[in-house]
């Protein structure tokens, strides 16, 4: 019979070594550059999904990497670093969104991603979905992105957006329904 041991500690499975994080915490430029190389795209894409605006997403990306040396002290290495960083990014993007709401509405012309990682034969279908997502109300879009792409539960989304789980569920279902109608 196969011998099964206790699960290994997650730190052994991380992409990011403790040494790298320690150096990033000390604001060493090389370490921050390395983290940017590894996670810059993830952070930017995550921010973009929420904000649908390249300039705002770039602001979030800068903010995240500016704050990273201080923030990594709060990462306790018990979960995936990328997962933790995505959550920090979501929070930062949501803060940006709230401040933007007080400024002005974003125009749809700004809502075009600059590049798509898609196979050529799927581009049409994905562009259609991209336009359909952009046409959702902001409330529906945020919940859809957090739920469908970022994998948050409705309970977590409720806490993030200060809405009830029920409201999150309802917005999500309305978003999916709307997307189906638009893509039909």
């Amino acid at each position, binding site marked *: 019979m196969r011998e099964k041991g206790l699960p290994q500690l997650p730190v052994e499975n991380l992409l990011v070594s403790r040494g790298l994080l320690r150096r990033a915490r000390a604001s060493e430029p090389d370490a921050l550059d390395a983290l940017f190389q590894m996670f810059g795209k993830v952070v930017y894409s995550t921010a973009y999904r929420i904000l649908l605006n390249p300039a705002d997403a770039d602001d979030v990306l800068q903010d995240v990497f500016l704050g990273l040396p201080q923030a990594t002290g709060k990462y306790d290495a*018990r979960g995936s670093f990328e997962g933790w960083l995505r959550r920090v990014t979501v929070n930062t993007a949501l803060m940006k969104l709230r401040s933007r709401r007080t400024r002005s509405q974003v125009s749809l012309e700004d809502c075009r991603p600059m590049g798509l990682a898609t196979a050529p034969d799927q581009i049409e279908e994905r562009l259609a979905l991209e336009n359909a997502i952009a046409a959702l109300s902001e409330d529906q879009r945020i919940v859809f992105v957090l739920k469908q792409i970022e994998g948050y539960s409705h309970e977590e989304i409720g806490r993030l957006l200060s809405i009830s789980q029920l409201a999150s569920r309802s917005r999500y279902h309305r978003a999916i329904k709307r997307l189906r109608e638009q893509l039909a």
Partner: protein
Amino acid sequence: MTIHPRFATLAEYAQSELSDKRRARVSSHLIACPECQATVRSIVRIGELARALYSVEPPADTMQKVRERWKAGDRIILPTAESVPSRRPHYRLVGVGAAVALLVCAVVFFGPRTARADRSELRFTPGTPEPGDTIAVEYVSTSWLGTAEHLYLRARYRTAHGQPYNRGAHHRTISQLERTAPGSYRGSFVLPDSVVYALFAVEDSGGRRVDSNGRRFWELLAHDGGKPTFQTLVQRQNDLIGRNWEAALATAQAATELHPEVPLAWYYLRSYQAALNQAATDAPASHDQANRFYEFHSALQGRPDLTGDDIGGMLWLGRISSADTISIVYWRRRLLEEAPAHPLAVQERVLETVVLDGGDLGRTVRDLETLWQEVGPAHPSLPRLGLEAAIQLRDTAAITTWLERRDTVDPWAAVNNSMRLLDIPALRQHGLERLRAELRRLMRAGRLNRSLEESAGEWDSAREDRVQTILAAIGKGLVMSGRVTEGLDSLEQAAAHSWNLSAFKMIADVKFELRDSAGAVSMLSRLAVDPSTQPALADSIHSVGAELLGVPGWLRTIERARVLMHERTLAEASNYFLRLDVAVADRHGTSGLLSDILADQVTVVAFWSRSCAPSVNQIPQIQEVTDRLNARGISIVVITSEEVSPALTRFLAERGVDFPVYHDLNGQALRAFSSWGTPEYYVLDAHGRLRFARVPLEDVERFAEALK
């Protein structure tokens, strides 16, 4: 009219967010509903596309801007843990000493449960064997078995691949026990290598008397490294399913204590807790369970050395823990890529095939055939759904092929599957041949493979029931084929000793055809007196009977039919005392003992749930049955595990429910009846003895009336 699931339900199904029970319900709807399949497919597709969207390269100069801002003294405090919902677990997995866990097992295995005065003992040496060991047995009987010269030890063996429930299980006599002193016997046997779990009973020569330790049996658990193996504990759970759910739960608990590193162990535990409504009673444990998946997820993701059990266990633990979709999709993808022939992967692939084929049955049959060629009988769902699709498609070649495959996986279902062929003209003859073969097999079968707890006499009686069922089906098939005389012969044999309305009706039809009106109405009188017969049909039968036999003759016929119904119904009765001093609360929240509520009258006890579609669908019939039973002085008690709440009260009021509904405090009633699932109906006599268990709703009145 088909009732489709709501869009929100389908969206949650596509996201794997439904409970197992709701998921199963939606799955069964999807199989037959192309419209909803298309909806689910489109939702899944939207999710797939969305996850691939916006993989956007950041501007090239961002990091340069970051450096400049940093040099300029710009600092940002990011919203991290304070506002980020934590998925990090709040505990560490720890091993539990085998001795502690075994103590738990021992309580579960041998804890006092019955009030039998003649408790006997069966001892094994070694008590914690490894497969292949020779095991010495000592049986000490204080019972009526202790006078024989020889006794026989019988066993039910389970291998690591055993399925839940004991349908089609193999039983065998493994040792002759010699008397060494009055009431004391010795023997030995070799535990086969493949066996991980075994149960035992002792009986006399010929199996006339059986000591099954009060239906608890005695048992051996294969050990490795001083503790029962995980597979052993899984097989113990599988064996207990359907006969003692509480013990199955305790076994699952022991498995997590002995094998905390196995994700599947935690999934099984969570499943039993959810099913027995126990998780909610222990908030800290529930909290741990919600986080346990993420502990495993962090520890195991990225590890390349996981088994199919581990990966499949993570998938199902994630689902039952309501984990995020990305994690679930991750484990599902790994399962399909790394262990595509594992039973859990095959189950996923089968359901995916059915859903993605979008109701194109021809395509489903072809795709499942391809899958079968690749993986064979890896999971029972494959031949089951293959056969379903073939039958719906009316593809006779595919039906025959899948039927043989299903026979190998689920031999216990062979008779029912053969009966289904009778409705397909092109396969009716094949169905008849299969039924005859099954009849021959049954007639030849010795008593050697009877269940451990079943005496030879009980087995004979059960076999007689099975024979009658098959004979009735053969009779029906022959009549449908135009071979009326032969069919009538089979039907009359089937109806000679049992109460089989379908056979009675068919015999009546044939006798009318043969112009034997008296014989026909005699059979119809049995339908007329059975409470499950529709009143309009019963009225018609009364008119025809009175016209043909005259009123006095018809009344005598009716009376004979009623006596016969009661006789044959009572012949099926069991006679068990239950512990009914269990607490229940009425819909106003007032608690009392079930024994007081059932006091001194024939009572029907129903287990029912507001969240169970079949239960809800049966509300009108339950109300009708209640009204008729009450008119005859028979009461009905409906028990639900849901707490009394304004929502439940409103739900019942909106549906005009007048029958009494009680909340099962702490699940005691469920345990008293060894009940599982809803709706289930039990009939108790005026002394509180359980006489009929798990009877169909349409037969409840007949059983209850027979006890009056």
